[in-house]
């Protein structure tokens, strides 16, 4: 057992000595792209998640012509509609008053410019035909399908996230290839030592062990570097974003990856490094046979 630990400690040390700083840099920068993109999307997603994604339609009424009670009864009878909520113009004004910057505007107007409204929740996902129909009801001045643009935003986020996953897969393959090639070159330069070791009775796993450690450590170091690159980039971005979002009265900023995601990035990088080393050792170490 003690001998086992000693041999692994020795292999770890030799592996560490073979970690190339340039390779760590390549891996770190490559992984920073999908990891950083993921952090950006997650931050935006947190915002868009607060927006209503329910299939809601707002009906704004013409104050002069509308028979509110009859309209409410008609809407409630409609089988395609799940819920109906009436928002009187006074209440709408009160709700607007909570939004930053608007009370001053309201005060300047001097009177309530808002109409009465119904907020209707449809049973079905596709609300455009229903919205078009409701617009023709007597007393309805204007119809707005609120969820539409929020859902478009959601779709864009999904496309972006899929793109990031594809990027992550491609760069993961590149990481494996980089490690594979580095380990290959190391094995070739250590050819004499490997050949002699095989002649005097070293097992394949003993000879391969430092290379496995080298691949693993190189991947882990690359993963940590990627996190550092993301953290620094987000900090720089946030300095500018704060100015922008304050002008909108928001305190939005881009968040760093969650602890779990950050851990996953490092672990993933380490595993890919190990895999690259494994492929290279299997292919190149076995090919070296004393003759």
């Amino acid at each position, binding site marked *: 057992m*003690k*001998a086992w630990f*000693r*041999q692994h400690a*020795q292999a770890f040390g030799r592996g560490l000595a073979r970690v190339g700083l340039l390779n760590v840099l390549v891996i770190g920068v490559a992984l920073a792209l999908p990891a950083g993109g993921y952090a950006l999307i997650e931050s935006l997603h947190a915002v868009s998640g607060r927006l209503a994604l329910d299939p809601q339609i707002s009906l704004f009424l013409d104050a002069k012509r509308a028979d509110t009670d009859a309209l409410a009864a008609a809407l409630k009878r409609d089988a395609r509609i799940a819920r109906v909520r009436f928002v009187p113009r006074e209440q709408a004004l009160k709700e607007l008053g909570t939004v930053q910057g608007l009370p001053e505007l309201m005060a300047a107007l001097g009177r309530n410019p808002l109409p009465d409204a119904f907020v209707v929740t449809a049973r079905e996902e596709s609300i455009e035909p229903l919205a078009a129909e409701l617009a023709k009801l007597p007393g309805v001045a204007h119809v707005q399908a609120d969820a539409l643009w929020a859902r478009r935003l959601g779709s864009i986020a999904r496309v972006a996230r899929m793109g990031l996953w594809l990027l992550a897969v491609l760069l993961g393959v590149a990481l494996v290839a980089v490690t594979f090639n580095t380990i290959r070159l190391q094995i070739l330069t250590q050819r*004499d*030592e490997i*050949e*002699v*070791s*095989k*002649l*005097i*009775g*070293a*097992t*394949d796993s*003993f000879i391969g062990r430092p290379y496995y450690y080298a691949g693993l450590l190189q991947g882990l170091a690359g993963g940590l570097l990627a996190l550092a690159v993301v953290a620094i980039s987000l900090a720089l971005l946030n300095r500018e974003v704060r100015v922008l979002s304050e002008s909108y009265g928001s305190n939005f900023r881009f968040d760093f990856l969650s602890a779990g995601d950050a851990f996953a990035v490092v672990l993933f990088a380490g595993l890919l490094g190990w895999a690259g080393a494994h492929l290279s050792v299997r292919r190149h170490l076995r090919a070296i*046979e*004393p*003759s």
Partner: protein
Amino acid sequence: MVSFSAVAKRYPGGEEALRGVTFSVDAAELLFITGRSGAGKSTLLKLIPAIERPSAGTVLVNGQNVAALKRAAIPYLRRNVGLVFQDQKLLYDRSVYDNVMLPLSFSAHPPKEAARRARAALDKVGLLAREKANPIQLSGGEQQRVAIARAVVNRPSILLADEPTANLDADSARRILDIFVEFNQVGVTVLIATHDHELVREYGKRVVTLEAGRAQ
């Protein structure tokens, strides 16, 4: 200890190095294998630690059929067979001491015990004083002695030497062979391949002569 029966070795390309060699070596025997270059001496020695596999016949080492060994078992066979080559195969990026330590790095010896063994082996070949030197600084005969120290440091029961005196002057050559004789006297089975008939005759040991791939 080592026995060959009807062993043939044909290399890819058709060259027949051995054509039915039969002989055996007892435990603690010292045997010379002589013959002209190209007679198959090196091939014969390489069959024992499974560096080469026979095309026909069987090679038994300690009762084990070497040709039937699985790949994973070969390192353990080699730890019991010390190898000395004509071209030493030392590593020139490290000291004499580290060269001798190499076989101990993958056996489970505690560090102190390993260091003690390496120094004992260097002492045995008379090079303890040069342990910190790089092998490149040593003479041919001294390098060959480092190779011997490396071959015996794991205390193998069989020691193989392929032309260990080929590039040495007569005195150095005799010194090398004397070291092999010493190991043989403490019970190690030794096989030495050499083309130097004169030197072999001085030692009065059993000799197997190879000619055109056959034992005479």
